[in-house]
């Protein structure tokens, strides 16, 4: 292939967006999915009421680089540890985990300690979130 001058094909970053928990509002998650699409990401949108097991199974099958969790129900301190455990149980320890929704300031540090890379509050612009994800998406080994 020495003659081939073409640059290697760009590798789209794959992002899973999931809504764990029981609140039935996914407008914010959909807006974020669209914004990330417009920033060139491939977004797998899994919808409402996702259990930690469903999120982990989807992350594995879709081989995503990033898991974005949108949560409005207030159950994040219960659900996030379970989601992270479910991911690890499937050997997924190299994805970037980000969170959005309504998360009180006091809970942000404990979530970061759990391994969440960033918490996007209501004040975060879509552009900022997309930029953070682009800058921090893991450069992974090709073989797990």
């Amino acid at each position, binding site marked *: *292939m020495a003659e081939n001058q*073409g640059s290697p*094909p760009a590798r789209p970053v794959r992002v899973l967006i999931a809504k764990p928990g029981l609140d039935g509002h996914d407008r914010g998650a959909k807006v974020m999915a669209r914004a990330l699409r417009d920033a060139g990401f491939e977004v797998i949108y899994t*919808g409402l009421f996702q259990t930690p097991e469903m999120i982990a199974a989807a992350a*594995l099958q879709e081989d995503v680089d990033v898991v974005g969790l949108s949560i409005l129900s207030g159950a994040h301190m219960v659900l996030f540890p379970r989601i992270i455990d479910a991911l690890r149980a499937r050997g997924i320890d190299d994805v970037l985990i980000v969170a959005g929704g309504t998360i009180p300031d006091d809970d942000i540090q404990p979530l970061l300690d759990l391994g969440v890379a960033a918490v996007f509050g209501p004040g975060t612009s879509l552009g900022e979130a997309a930029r953070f994800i682009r800058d921090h998406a893991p450069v992974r080994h*090709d073989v*797990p």
Partner: protein
Amino acid sequence: MSRDATPGLGVRLLSGDLGALARAATLVENGDPVGRVVVENIHPRTGRAHVVGVTGPPGAGKSTLIDALIGELRGRGHRVGVILIDPSSPISGGAVLGDRIRMGQWDRDNHVFIRSMAARGHAGGLAPTTAALIHLFDAAGFDPILVETVGVGQGEIEVAHLAQTTLLLQVPGLGDGVQAIKAGILEVGDIVAVNKADLPGAEELVHDLTMMVTADTDPDGWSAPILLTNATAGEGVRELVDRLEAHRRYLDITGAGRRRKEIAARFEVFGLLRQELEQESPLHLLQKDQIDRWRGAISDVVERKRTPGAAVALLLGQAAPSPS
């Protein structure tokens, strides 16, 4: 990236390792050389799975029906692979892959594997590497493999080349079936499901479509059955799986199965050839002495010394088509 790890990935995939399947799929989609090696290695072990294309207009209920099919197929003991294709944005290259929303809770079942795929600029309802992903699923023991196309309008029916069985969805309210005739999509359906049976006009549409397709019996005796389904409620799904199995048997006992596989192989080989040729300079394909011929042929076309058809003939070493 280490090539040493490649045999490991292929071996793990063949043993049914789902993480290996997922990662191999990513590598293949990205055109990574490691992915290509994996496909080369596993290819001899593939070709057994029943590939079922699921196509139809946007919003017809393809994903919902696939979810219902998974349940019925699991009940019959099959290990079910699903590939869900959605369009990429032509502007950003990104995509929102939303078919997975319709999938139920299969997370505890290792015999269901669902993968979303962006079309990445490919027209025709599939993605450029769908054929290769099918091989990966096949190697990992999934059979059948259900492939949902991008919601098709008129004529994006590539999946019929790749699948052994094409399931075409129609829904009431989009016309009386004449649209399907005009677009020639009715012909690609080995089985036609009129979905949203709960909506008005469904039975009438079945009637209209039945009138239109009864004339089409293929040389080996298959004529497309037209079924009513309500994917949301799971109605008609058992009959649908019966028909899928009947079509598979028909392919096995007549010569039709072999013919379908030849069509699929030709489609895949031509697809790869086209991808190579569409690169800005497919020169790496050519021997040194051919490179000059290639460049010369392109210049000739620009300068109107040669027609595009004559350039192709030159490159293939054939006699140029003579103007009549």
